[in-house]
């Protein structure tokens, strides 16, 4: 059973539809207690950093996630904003603490080429930096859908599974053991996106 964390704002339905189309059972977790019966978890995208962290804290999710992910070892996938909140810090609208699972901060995109636009919107090619089970069956240069104005700047390259380019390198995917995160939206990236979700659903630590 895959649990999608819902604390008021996020692209829940599309993620649910994608996993269900792949034949997996999904449950929306509105309370921290809902995490208990889940085998793996998803932190969805859409929203704003501070608002999301406030929602997670308010709902008691912060502690429940630490327990589920770090103590019980449940695999988790963070998508877009879901990836951002796994960082140490966010800077959207002021400095805000994240979950601190990946060292680094989330900062505004500043492409070196001023003709390139922010937000980074559309299909972009992904380059693999490490072999990750998330991308099994996905060829190099495959395109995924990105839509974001902020990106994660890691402290160390360790954990960066894939990158893309938009006036500079952008972290496209992270993996640390059973903790996965993607800047792109796999539920919005058609065939290869569904492959990534299927790989996450099947992952065994």
């Amino acid at each position, binding site marked *: 059973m895959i649990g999608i964390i819902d604390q008021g704002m996020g692209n829940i339905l599309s993620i649910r539809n994608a996993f269900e189309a792949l034949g997996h059972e999904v449950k929306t977790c509105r309370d921290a207690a809902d995490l208990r019966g889940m085998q793996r978890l998803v932190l969805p995208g859409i929203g704003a950093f501070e608002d999301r962290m406030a929602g997670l804290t308010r709902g008691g999710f912060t502690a429940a996630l630490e327990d589920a992910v770090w103590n019980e070892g449940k695999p988790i996938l963070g998508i877009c904003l879901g990836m951002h909140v796994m960082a140490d810090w966010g800077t959207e609208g002021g400095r805000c603490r994240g979950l601190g699972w990946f060292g680094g901060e989330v900062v505004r995109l500043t492409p070196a080429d001023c003709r390139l636009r922010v937000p980074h919107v*559309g299909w972009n090619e992904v380059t693999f930096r490490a072999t990750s089970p998330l991308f099994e069956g996905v060829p190099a240069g495959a395109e995924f859908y990105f*839509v974001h104005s902020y990106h994660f700047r890691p402290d160390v390259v360790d954990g960066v599974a894939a990158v893309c380019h938009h006036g500079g390198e952008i972290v496209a995917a992270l993996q640390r053991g059973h903790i996965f995160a993607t800047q792109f939206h796999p539920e919005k990236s058609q065939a290869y996106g569904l492959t990534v979700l299927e790989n996450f659903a099947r992952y065994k630590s």
Partner: protein
Amino acid sequence: MLKSRLIPKLQLKPSSRAGSSRMVLVTTVGFASAVEIGDPVSQAKIYEAQGADELIFLDLAATSDGREALVDVIRKVAEHVFMPVTVGGGVRSVDDARLLVANGADKICLNTAALDNPDLIGEIAEVCGTSSVVVSIDYRLDRFGLYRVYSQNGTIPREWQPADWAAEAARRGAGEILLTSIARDGTGRGLDVTLTSQVARTVSIPVITSGGCGQPSHVVAGFIEGMADAVAAGTYFCFRDQNLVQTRAQLVNAAIPVRVMT
């Protein structure tokens, strides 16, 4: 690198058949003479199979009591397509935006409401994220021969010129601009690349242009002369002898970076 996008536009209206509350797909010319041409959910599935980059749904009736029918379409579409879906038409509040996002919309499109209350752009961006707000600008030449923004489905002239309003919308938190030429809508005589490039040079957020595509060369011009990041088209993709596959091939020939579907 980031690819240029092809975005089918699906215009919706309640069916004119008596007793039916279904939303149907319509095509328009100059924002008028809406002709019913099919079912939006079926058409969305076709676009998914043909590898569209994303979809834009616009509720042309946009009445405050038409929400259920629109939400129903979006929910059904979200079950079958795995690409981004932008939804607009009568979005007037943060609650309207929340409802659409909860039912499958990835981006919310604002038009008249943003002109009436520009603060709304920032309010929705704060809740849904900046990259989730698209400000839609419908324009035509006014009686003095100047480009002017029109609201309420192209009927009311506003105080803004398109490039200035685009800049203001971006300043207030819009993530993208959707430009539509009212005069060229549905005519197939080509996009307004002059106005498109003017707006593209004024803002640093992505620009989607639409209104008038009739042949692949028009789409090419939208990217090259128009400097747009995306071209949206309604009639072109579903009521003409054009399709996504053939259009992509033409873009590749013109050396425009697009997704190549194998």
